[in-house]
């Protein structure tokens, strides 16, 4: 499979009146089509900055990004649904902004809402939905623009643990069903192992990539993030990643 995204020698400095801080230092990685890459790192490292640079919301100080002309969709920590719009109106927001709200797009949204159990709630307001449903609505809002690469910024961290496990399964299924490539940022080791094809471990600031691991889990039947947690290799990965993050912690 070919690369869909290449990050080459990305550096990012933030300036304030008091100081200049190096946030990212020589970040290099590639993502293949259909792959889920998880960037695992401690809180406060430049994880979100990497996503912001990929999304084009921030310019890197130096280095180059090649997205091979692919479209990028961004999903945030909170659902960020607009409370004055219905679920349907929220989902069409991106299309409305890009003036692409045609019949074809409407049909696609209808399909997504129907298979992911939100069709009956399309005329409800966000406050009338559960946390998990809101998160699914937020994902469909992103998918409505038909992106090739999805960026997920700790997208499940606002949910309670039980909902979080269900939503993670849902979102994983949707990403795989719709054949998307995804880059997910998290500080949760278990979540990283259960979702990822590849995990890149990040260091403290200035953030660099410490190591990259391919995840191979032995699972009976279809993989879901939930049953991935029962795979025999799960604990080994957990210990390995834990140790790497600890080592980095001690160096600081």
């Amino acid at each position: 499979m070919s690369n869909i995204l290449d990050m080459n020698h990305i550096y990012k400095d933030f300036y304030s009146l008091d100081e200049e801080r190096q946030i990212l230092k020589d970040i290099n990685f590639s993502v293949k089509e259909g792959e889920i890459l998880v960037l695992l790192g401690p809180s406060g490292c430049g994880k979100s900055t990497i996503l912001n640079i990929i999304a084009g919301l921030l310019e890197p100080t130096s280095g180059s990004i090649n997205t091979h002309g692919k479209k990028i969709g961004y999903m945030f920590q909170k659902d960020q649904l607009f409370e004055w719009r219905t679920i349907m109106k929220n989902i069409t927001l991106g299309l409305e902004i890009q003036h692409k709200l045609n019949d074809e797009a409407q049909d696609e949204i209808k399909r997504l809402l129907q298979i992911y159990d939100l069709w009956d709630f399309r005329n409800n307001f966000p406050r009338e939905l559960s946390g998990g449903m809101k998160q699914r609505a937020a994902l469909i809002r992103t998918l409505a623009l038909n992106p090739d690469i999805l960026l997920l910024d700790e997208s499940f961290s606002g949910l309670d643990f039980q909902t979080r496990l269900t939503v993670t399964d849902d979102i994983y299924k949707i990403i795989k069903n719709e054949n998307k490539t995804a880059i997910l940022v998290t500080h949760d080791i278990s979540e990283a192992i259960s979702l990822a094809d590849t995990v890149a471990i990040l260091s403290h600031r200035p953030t660099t990539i410490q190591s990259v691991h391919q995840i191979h889990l032995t699972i009976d039947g279809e993989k879901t993030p939930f049953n991935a947690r029962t795979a025999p290799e799960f604990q080994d990965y957990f210990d390995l990643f834990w140790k790497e993050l600890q080592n980095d912690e001690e160096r600081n």
Partner: protein
Amino acid sequence: MKKETKGSPGYLTYLKNIKKESRHILWIQLLSCVIFLIFWEVAATLGWIDDFFVSKPSAIWTLLIKYIENGEIFRHVGISLLETLAGLAIGTIGGLFIAICLWWSDKLARIFDPFLVVLNALPKTALAPILIVWVGASMKGIIVIAVITSITVTIMSAYSYFITVDPDKIKLMQSFGATKWQILTKLVLPANGINMINLLKINIGMTWVGVIVGEFIASKAGIGYLIVYGGQVFKLNVVMMGVFVLAIFTLIMYQGVNLLEIYLRKKQSAKK
């Protein structure tokens, strides 16, 4: 239209008690007004208080009826109402427009910041005599005073509402490739709908201050004129009547905005 409420006996009792409580409060409010008026009337009639200085309800009422019969009151109210509505519209819309400009350009906001702070701290009524000299002792002058009293607070409040919109929501819009205009019209303004209604409520009070002060200084008609004229010739009945009519109209405008708010809220939840 009576809605059938369903629920357990406990829930129905709960609802009934809440209704009973609000009715109770309304009765106490009405009763205290009536008692106050009766006490005032009796005290003035029996000479406990001097009705030359405090007037009395029956005299104010008789005077109001006289003013209604000869149509004078409609002329005064009409003029003041026109000035207030014009001042309110110009002050609110103009203030919002300037607040949008400041939101649009951070540099502009920083340049204007100290001037706005001074203008906001200054009692705007202190500017009234100057404005009357500049614009003229006419309805135009009074409207300008009304605009000045409401516009600064509109600019400052609206601007602070605009800049506190969730930065992640702005990032979301940007990730869709939204233009600044789209961020304004699809996020910043709708997110502040209720805030704008509240601003309108504050502005009603502000604008009336401007209009009344303007009429005090230079006018031949209006509620403010009525009050100041009554004071000068020691006809306290006229002053009291002016204040009473003023209170009624402020209340009506305030309730009008309340109805607008209810209508907007209903419209939002009735879309389904």
